[in-house]
């Protein structure tokens, strides 16, 4: 049984499927996310897949400012992901609300709505930083798993 558990834990670290949610970003961050999939960066070599279905995903990657309208959608997507899962907030807007943080309709960063594991800063962050963020999220998942035994 423990061998199966070891294999499952190994799989968790080697196959993070990412669902990307755009909370009203300017598309700068989103283009950088898609750049990770191109032959130059090729995130699939780490087993990372950009998946469209939150029910299949392990990592939620959020870009853009959270506002009062889409915070429910963000929460809904987070709740649809089965455990274990990690959340990455990306870009200046995803971290704090960015230049829009004082607008009347803006809630602020992603962490005001759901718990965030990793913050990737930049406007927009470079693809290398995004890949680093996913790797860091995996280390967090690993630490959580080890703490849980």
């Amino acid at each position: 049984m423990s061998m199966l558990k070891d294999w499952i834990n190994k799989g968790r670290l080697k196959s993070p499927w990412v669902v990307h949610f755009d909370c009203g970003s300017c598309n700068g961050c989103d283009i950088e996310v898609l750049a990770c999939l191109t032959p130059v960066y090729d995130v699939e070599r780490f087993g990372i897949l950009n998946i469209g279905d939150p029910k299949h995903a392990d990592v939620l990657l959020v870009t853009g400012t959270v506002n009062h309208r889409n915070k429910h959608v963000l929460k809904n997507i987070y709740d649809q992901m089965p455990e274990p899962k990690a959340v990455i907030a990306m870009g200046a807007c995803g971290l704090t609300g960015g230049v829009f943080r004082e607008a009347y309709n803006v809630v602020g960063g992603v962490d005001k709505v759901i718990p965030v594991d990793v913050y990737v800063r930049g406007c927009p962050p470079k693809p290398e930083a995004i890949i680093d963020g996913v790797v860091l999220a995996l280390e967090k998942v690993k630490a959580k798993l080890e703490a849980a035994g």
Partner: protein
Amino acid sequence: MGKLLLATLAVFLAPIVGGLIAGIDRKITARLQSRFGPPILQPFYDVFKLLGKAPMIMNPWQVLTVWVYLLSSMLTVFLFFMGSDLLLIFFVMTIGAVFFVMGALSTQSPYAQVGAQRELITMLTYEPLIILVFVSIAMVTGSFKVSEVFAYGKPLLYQLPLMFIVLGYALTIKLRKSPFDISACHHAHQELVRGVLTEYSGPQLAIIEIAHWYDVVFVLGLCALFWATSAPGMIILLVVTYFAELVIDNVTARMTWKWMLQSVWCWGLALSVLNLLWLYAG
């Protein structure tokens, strides 16, 4: 007794072979797109991860249907290596495929519904072709039994070259490759989310993936029947066929179900009739 042993062994080895084929598939696909690609063992990592995810079940039907799908796929491989009747194998395979669609239809998600309808249409497309392939094999060997094909002594490919192309259509659809990946394409986020697989998650998705590996082994087994006389010939035929599948997958775009039905039935039926007439006349 020897047959029983072989078939049992095949049931245990098929997921390993199927997973490795999926891994090599992803690697070669990546290389064709000038990427480095994931490790060969990536499909196993994916499946073990999915087995460890918390279950998120919509209704009891979903659990039942994935298990029936897995069992029927295992039974298909078992019967095939037992040298059993091709028609019986076909019906067992169909039961699994229908249950898989039923599980998707039992949920409320419009994406799963659309994917399930499309999966039904793909079944409608490839099933007559597979039946025609079986009929032509029976016309040549005089029996529907897999064991009779191995006892026949000559490669079927000489007499059924066009039927092999028809089986290639069915193989492309069954492997969910472009241009026929309309029911569960993982590139079609905006169109389908994940189509027929949308509402399956965690362990259920892992079981579906394993059942799919059994299906791949079975369909490649069908291709191997066309060169049943020597093992090296069989392997060369399978490698060439699978590589052709990968090239077709990478050079074509996802098409619509109407295009699929029209082109596959027109070409498939025309090639079948030609080959059967040739057999009948010769």
